[in-house]
Structure formats: structure tokens, C-alpha cells
């Protein structure tokens, strides 16, 4: 396995070049078009009436007063929409209980924010006022918001048909865990939570639906990560032919997984537009976003790790309680299964047993949020490894180095059935130890402690599953598509099915295309997000945009390069022609023709090479043979204020290995953003429901997303271990920062407080929690 610690590319290569993102000028100058910027002639506005109760029977919905208000076009309730297909769950598990998820509540509401009725008016303020005039009579029912309480005997049933509140039980094991635990010198147990988080994209969701009565066709504009899947599923819900349904995804102001979904409102706006014959816009308010868009995480994990006295890990057990919320959104039940898949982390042990119980609660559903499932697993594993190190009085770096899978062991088959593609796990850790001057940090820590200060050094060595994924392992196909069109002038248009929304593929894909065709990067434009323009694609999530969409583009380019060569041979009248640097050259005579000349000739088609079509376009659908498995090491230094419990992250060293890097600037940006969201979970964020299922953190005033001033300086470094899974050698980096961050931060703070006898802390590490831990340690 070739590995290098720096980018080994030629200076003139576009691969590995730190190009600024070409999408940024429009984003930072206010020229981008988001859903709310779309104005259609005759636009109408929808406002949704939502339940203030977490559980209640809907006795009566009186729309008369609302419908009579001037400017109101229509009011619909669950009775009107009950024939629309259910909000889809794409995941399947044996014995999975799937509640029927109407787009508007029918008879009963299951969480605060559950949509009950929709008002359509010519003016958005009238719609809002009219929504307030809809009188809903509720009969309140007992609710349960905590997954462990929901499992207790006598808990209120979220869905009356399933009184135990269990949606599914899932068991997976590999190796022989019982033997491993019997053989162990030491077993460490810990309950670890990954609290519910609210994804909080800057742009909330938004939908415009435009029913063309004459054509009997529907256009849905939606802020989504998956335009094609959305089209397939919304067309199904509304019983429309798929080819007469078009989804347009304009700019997306942040997705992070919460827009990897199909929501009630997307079908509801289609329904409303079809019924009223008007284009209808709905823009989610921030409060609605917090109440009604999926949340992430929601784990209570009971971990056990078994090891030898020398630190050799033998096995791991996990009982995972997943808070599902009241319904399954698109991937809800699948997310915790990813945690189980990733349980081995970067370590060699092959004995694992895991049990998941998926629990209904009267809360908004959980689903994919940046790092989905893998972040929760990594947090648990990396906390357990630290707990084990503390138990054995070993250095946390030493215990990790001792247990890593070794470079010569790849491809490595894990106890959970995965095949890790490539890796040298010690590489980023050693680099992070060196950059952070780990030995020096430990010496400083001794001094700090002597001076009465609480300084901590923590690390995480994470692995993740990216490039979702091989189709058999995904609910809806795991391939990706690309079309490359070389226009008659030689300029290039790329259509990607991946629908990037902030990951920078308009730049990286232009780099790939320009590199392969030997042209200027400005001669390539990358389009996406319109099902009428772009061939079917799966979308962007699970760090798959470049890792699956990139190879699709690469292979489409190879097809075109072969065609270019055939034209070159014809035009240069030679069988010995090579195409490089944007020029076809006859190796015998030295005569040449440019890409523009070839493209012109291919479109003009006066003469064609044998068995060759005119034009210059290729489409490729690429099926990945495996996932990719990026990895890395984050080292975090913290200082805890004894008197206030305030935590300061004084150093953050991230060494991420995402395979070959196409654009280091974009990779760094992805790591920074990921770290911000990981830090949010570690220190600040928590979705809080009270015992009655009321969301208490329902606004940005009560939900602490980190601000710029709360961010440490992230020292972002890389190693490059190419993936053998795809021809670009890329692995994916969208979620790495989030996955690596929170365990490193928590390990660091626990390390700072370990001298007070603190062994474990659950997130978020608020000053109050830390202060209490310090007081407890003093007592």
C-alpha cells in the first residue's frame, strides 16, 4: 500500500490543487437562488397548523372561520389528504413496525408540531392569520419523550397498537464474544449517551409546488439533498406519473442529513397546488424547523469492553437504545444499524455482539445527521478505549497503537461483515502526536496540575464508512451518475446526479474533468439538481458525492477520451494518435488538432470515424464495489476553569486521511465545518423535551449552536492513503470532522478532571455539568 504524508502530484496537475470554490462568489454576494427566492406568477402561500400537544386525539378541526377570511383560497385537513400516500420509510429490518404516516394528522397527533391542517392564501401574512383562526379541539393523552422511560412497564403507548413502544429489535454478532469476555483480564462497562441534536441548517426547509393544469404535470422546488429520489417518492405519494413530476433543487443552505429525506410538506404542497391550481410556496420557520425537521442521534448505549492486562482488546458488547421519535422518516431505523457496523473502529479485535432496540417516543423522528450512526459508534468506542486505558493505567496513544489493524492486513474483514479497503491507522496518529508535541503536552500537564490547573489532553482515532454505497447495502441504489457534454466549441458541461449542496463539487468535479481532458478548469461547468436536466442520480449524503459521483464522472470522461481519440485518428489520418493536454497529436507526423476542433467536427459530422455516433456526450452510472473507510486522529487540549466549569479548547490538531485529496482547501473546509458540529455536540447542543413531550429548546435562543467565537483554531493536516475501491483513490471527508471531534473533546475534558476522580461525562459538557463534577470530585 502506497502511502505518503504529502500530496505527491505533479505541480501542473489540477488534482490536489488548492483552488477556491467556484460556487462561492454567488453565495457570498447574495446572487444565489434559494427556494424562498423563487417567485412565480400567481404565487400563493401555505401555512401549516400544528399540534401543541405531544399526544392527543383530534376531536374536531373547525376551518370555517379561517376559510371565510378574505384572501384565503383553501383550507385542508387530514380528512382531505388521507388518500395521499404515507410519508415513506426507505429502510427495512426484520419485524420492523412502521406506523402509517399521513401527511396531515388523521384523528390523533403523535408529537408537538405534528401537522394538522394547511391554509392557502394569496398573501403569506393572511395565510398565517388564517392558520391561527383554525380551531382544533384536542383531547390530551399521556405522552412519553424519553426512550428508556418509554420502555418501562406501564409507559404511555406512543402508538396504541404497540403498547411496548418497541419498533424493532436488531441483533448482530461476530466472532465469539462470550469466549472473549471469559478470557479477559479486565472488563470495563459504561453507559454512554449521544444526546438528541437539531441539525440547524442556515436555510430551513422550503417547498414551492407548481401544478400545470394544462399539462397535468407537477414541478416541486425543494431544498433537498436527493432530488431524483424525492421525485420518485413524491410522485408515488400523489399517484402522479414520475415523468410528469419534476423536482428542482435550487441552492441548498445546508443539509447535514436533515434534507436527506422526504417530508410530509413536500407531498402536501403538491397536493395543495393540484387542488387549488395555483403555485404554492411554504417556507419553514425556524421554530417549525426545530419541531418538525428530523433530529439526529438520540442514543443511550451500554458498552462493555474486554481486554488483556497488556491492553489487547478482545471484544466489545453493546446494548443500544435508539430514540426513534413518533414515526420513521426515510432512514430512521437504519441509522443505529450503522453504529453496529462501525463498532470495531480501527481495532483488530473480532468478537462483537450488539443489540439494538428501536423505541417510539412522542417526539419528532430522528434520522441521519452528519456522521449518522458512525459518530455515535466512534464516540462510544473511543470513550471505551480511554476508559480501558485509564483502568490499565496505560497511555491512550499507546493502547490505540497496540490495537490498530496493521497496514499489511488490508483488505481487512471485520466482525461486523465489512471489508476495510485500505489504511495505515498509526500514520495519522503518529503525525498528530508529533504536531501537537504530545510528550511536551504531558509534561505541561504535570506542571499545570502542580499549579492547581485542570488541563486535559484527549484524542480520538476514528474510522468511518463512506461512499454509500454498494447498491445491495442501500435501500435505493448506491451508485451515482455523471454526464459529460463537450459542446461544439470544446467547452464542457458536466451533469452530476450527486446534487452537491455545499460540498464544493462544482469545483472538484471541474478539476477532475479539466485534468482528464487537459483543459482549463474554467472551461468546465458543473450542473445538478434538476430532474428534467440531469440523468437519474442518488444524491449527496454519507460522504458519497466525490467518492461515488467522482468515479462516475471519471468513467464518463474515459468514454469521451476514447471517442476524442477516434476523431483525432480520423482527422489526423493516422492510427497512432495520442490525446493529452487537450490536444490530439499524431505521434508519427507531429500534426495535431485541438479538443475544440474535434468537438466541432463531431457535431458538424461531415465525416465520422467507423462505428462512431456524432456528437460528444457520455453518461456513466457507476456502481461502487465497496464502501470506503477513511480514518484519522484528532488531538484536543483543554483547560477547565475550576470555579466556573467553563471549558476552553486551547489546541485542536486534526489529521484526517480521506484518501487522495482533489482540493485541499475544500477538504480543510469540510473538516472545519465538521469539527464545528462535533464541538456543538460535545460542549453545547441538546434538544430537550420535557416529560410531556414539549420541546423546550425550540429556538436558537435555547439551542446553543457554536458561534465563530466559540470555535478553536483547527490545525488541519492530512495523510493520503488512496482507496483501491475507485480509480480516483478518494474516500470522502464530509463527516470526518464531526466523527473525530466529540470523543476527542470529551476524552480531553475527562482527562483534565481525572485527577478529581472523574471517570466519565456525558455530552453536552456544559459549565454546570462540569462545575458539578468538580464539586463531586472535591467532596
Amino acid at each position, binding site marked *: 500500500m502506497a502511502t505518503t504524508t504529502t500530496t505527491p502530484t505533479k505541480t501542473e496537475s489540477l488534482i490536489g490543487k488548492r483552488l477556491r470554490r467556484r460556487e462561492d462568489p454567488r453565495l457570498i454576494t447574495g446572487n444565489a437562488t434559494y427556494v424562498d427566492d423563487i417567485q412565480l406568477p400567481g404565487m400563493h402561500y401555505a401555512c401549516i397548523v400544528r399540534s*401543541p400537544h405531544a399526544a392527543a386525539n383530534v376531536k374536531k378541526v373547525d376551518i370555517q372561520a379561517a376559510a371565510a377570511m378574505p384572501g384565503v383560497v383553501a383550507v385542508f385537513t387530514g380528512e382531505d389528504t388521507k388518500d395521499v400516500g404515507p410519508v415513506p420509510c426507505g429502510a427495512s429490518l426484520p419485524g420492523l413496525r412502521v406506523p402509517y404516516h399521513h401527511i396531515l394528522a388523521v384523528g390523533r397527533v403523535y408529537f408537538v408540531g405534528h401537522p394538522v391542517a394547511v391554509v392557502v392564501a394569496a398573501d403569506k401574512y393572511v395565510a398565517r392569520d388564517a392558520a391561527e383562526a383554525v380551531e382544533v379541539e384536542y383531547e390530551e393523552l399521556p405522552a412519553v419523550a424519553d426512550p428508556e422511560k418509554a420502555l418501562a412497564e406501564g409507559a404511555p403507548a406512543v402508538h396504541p397498537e404497540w403498547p411496548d413502544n418497541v419498533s424493532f429489535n436488531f441483533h448482530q454478532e461476530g466472532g465469539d464474544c462470550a469466549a472473549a469476555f471469559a478470557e479477559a483480564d479486565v472488563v470495563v462497562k459504561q453507559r454512554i449517551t449521544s444526546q438528541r441534536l437539531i441539525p440547524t441548517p442556515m436555510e430551513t426547509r422550503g417547498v414551492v409546488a407548481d401544478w400545470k393544469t394544462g399539462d397535468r404535470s407537477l414541478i416541486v422546488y425543494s431544498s433537498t439533498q436527493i432530488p431524483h429520489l424525492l421525485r420518485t417518492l413524491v410522485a408515488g405519494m400523489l399517484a402522479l406519473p414520475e415523468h410528469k413530476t419534476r423536482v428542482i433543487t435550487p441552492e441548498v443552505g445546508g443539509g447535514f442529513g436533515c434534507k436527506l429525506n422526504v417530508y410530509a410538506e413536500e407531498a402536501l404542497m403538491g397536493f395543495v397546488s393540484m387542488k387549488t391550481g395555483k403555485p404554492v410556496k411554504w417556507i419553514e420557520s425556524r421554530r417549525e424547523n426545530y419541531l418538525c425537521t428530523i433530529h439526529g442521534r438520540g442514543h443511550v448505549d451500554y458498552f462493555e469492553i474486554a481486554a488483556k492486562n497488556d491492553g489487547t482488546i478482545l471484544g466489545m458488547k453493546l446494548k443500544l437504545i435508539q430514540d426513534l421519535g413518533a414515526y420513521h422518516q426515510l432512514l430512521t431505523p437504519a441509522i443505529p444499524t450503522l453504529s453496529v457496523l462501525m463498532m470495531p473502529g480501527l481495532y483488530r479485535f473480532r468478537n462483537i455482539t450488539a443489540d439494538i432496540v428501536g423505541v417510539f417516543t412522542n417526539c419528532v423522528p430522528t434520522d441521519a445527521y452528519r456522521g449518522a450512526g458512525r459518530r455515535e459508534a466512534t464516540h462510544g468506542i473511543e470513550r471505551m478505549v480511554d476508559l480501558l486505558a485509564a483502568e490499565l493505567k496505560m497511555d491512550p496513544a499507546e493502547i490505540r497503537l497496540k490495537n490498530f489493524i496493521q497496514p499489511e492486513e488490508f483488505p481487512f474483514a471485520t466482525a461486523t461483515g465489512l471489508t476495510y479497503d485500505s489504511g495505515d491507522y498509526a500514520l495519522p496518529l503518529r503525525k498528530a502526536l508529533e504536531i501537537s508535541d504530545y510528550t511536551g503536552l504531558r509534561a505541561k500537564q504535570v506542571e499545570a496540575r502542580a499549579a492547581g490547573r485542570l488541563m486535559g489532553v484527549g484524542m480520538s482515532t476514528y474510522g468511518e464508512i463512506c461512499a454509500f454505497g454498494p447498491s445491495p447495502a442501500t435501500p435505493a441504489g448506491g451508485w451515482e451518475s455523471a454526464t459529460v457534454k463537450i459542446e461544439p466549441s470544446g467547452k464542457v458541461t458536466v451533469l452530476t446526479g450527486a446534487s452537491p449542496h455545499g460540498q464544493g463539487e462544482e469545483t472538484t468535479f471541474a478539476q477532475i474533468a479539466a485534468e482528464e481532458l487537459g483543459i482549463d478548469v474554467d472551461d468546465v461547468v458543473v450542473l445538478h439538481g434538476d430532474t428534467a436536466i440531469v440523468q437519474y442520480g442518488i444524491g449527496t449524503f454519507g460522504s458519497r458525492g466525490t467518492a461515488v459521483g467522482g468515479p462516475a464522472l471519471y468513467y464518463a470522461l474515459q468514454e469521451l477520451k476514447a471517442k476524442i481519440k477516434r476523431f483525432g485518428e480520423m482527422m489526423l489520418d493516422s492510427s497512432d494518435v495520442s490525446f493529452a493536454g487537450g490536444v490530439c497529436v499524431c505521434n508519427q507526423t507531429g500534426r495535431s488538432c485541438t479538443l475544440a476542433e474535434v468537438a466541432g467536427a463531431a457535431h458538424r459530422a461531415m465525416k465520422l470515424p467507423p462505428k462512431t455516433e456524432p456528437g460528444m456526450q457520455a453518461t456513466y452510472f457507476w456502481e461502487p464495489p465497496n464502501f470506503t473507510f477513511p480514518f484519522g486522529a484528532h488531538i484536543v487540549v483543554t483547560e477547565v476553569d475550576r470555579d466556573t466549569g467553563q471549558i476552553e479548547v486551547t489546541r485542536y490538531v486534526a489529521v484526517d486521511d480521506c484518501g487522495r485529496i482533489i482540493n485541499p482547501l475544500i477538504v480543510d473546509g469540510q473538516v472545519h465545518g465538521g469539527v464545528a458540529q462535533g464541538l456543538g455536540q460535545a460542549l453545547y447542543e441538546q434538544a430537550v423535551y*420535557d416529560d410531556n413531550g*414539549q420541546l423546550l429548546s*425550540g*429556538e436558537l*435562543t*435555547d439551542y446553543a449552536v457554536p458561534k465563530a467565537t466559540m470555535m478553536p483554531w483547527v490545525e488541519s493536516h492530512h495523510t493520503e492513503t488512496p482507496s483501491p475501491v475507485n480509480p480516483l483513490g478518494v474516500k470522502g471527508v464530509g463527516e470526518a470532522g464531526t466523527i473525530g471531534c466529540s470523543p476527542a473533546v470529551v476524552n480531553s475534558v475527562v482527562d483534565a478532571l481525572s485527577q478529581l476522580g472523574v471517570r466519565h461525562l456525558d455530552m453536552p459538557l456544559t459549565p454546570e455539568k462540569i462545575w458539578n463534577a468538580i464539586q463531586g470530585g472535591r467532596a
Partner: protein
Amino acid sequence: MKISGAHKLPLGRDRAFRAMQDPAVLAQCMPGCESLDRTGEDEYAMRMKMALAAVTGQFQGKVRIADSAFPESFRLIVEGSGKVGFMKGDGLVRLTEAAPDSTEVAFDGDVHVGGTIASVGQRLIDGTAKLMIKRFFDKLAAKAAEVE
């Protein structure tokens, strides 16, 4: 959420007890109260306006008095709902004679809120409720002379 506290009224205990169940007096003293009408034995319909941080709204509700033990104690049950959510309260009010013309009114109860006021204003509910209760007693004290 638990709510408890005590205030003094410059009234004898019997007068204090009656004042606290007189719709006319209550309507004047309750902050934001727009109307309070007797609908039955110890039952009132109420309309009030409440402001909690950025959330302002009108509530319609019911006030019920139960377990009335003149002049010592009664239970107050309040239910209200509006466009910004709902609230429910249930508490015991106890009156003790502090001096011949002074009564201490202690209350102890549970308040639940839901909807927007819960998701946006939860942190402020405690303070707001205490402030509203204080205003109520201040006003009632100021009106003591008018109470029979």
C-alpha cells in the same frame, strides 16, 4: 414546573379569602385579564393576554375553585389555551392569619405549558409567573380598602 411562594395581604383572613374569590376583584387585579365571567358554582371563564419574551398571545380558559375550606384554603385549577400554546395550573392556596389585619397567602402548585410558549419561553416562565403573581398581590393589596 413547580411554583410556590407567599405574599401578605393587608386584610383579615375572612376578607382576604372572599376577595380572592370575587370575580370583580380578581378581574381588576389579574395582570392581562380582559374578562372573567362566572359560569357556574366556583367556575369562571377567563380571557387574558400574556406576554412571554417574544411571544404574545391571548388565552381563553377556565378557572375553577375546588376543595374550598373557608377561610383557610382552596384549590385553584386554571386551564387556558391560545394560538401560542396552552397552560394548565393546579395549586393549593393557604391563608394564615399573620396579624389582626394581615393575612399570609401561600401557594404551592404545578404549572404545565405547551406549544410555542414552551419551546420558546420555557426559561422565562418561572420568572414571569412569579412577577405576575407579585403584581396580582400588589394590586389586591392596593385595593384592600375597596374589599368588603
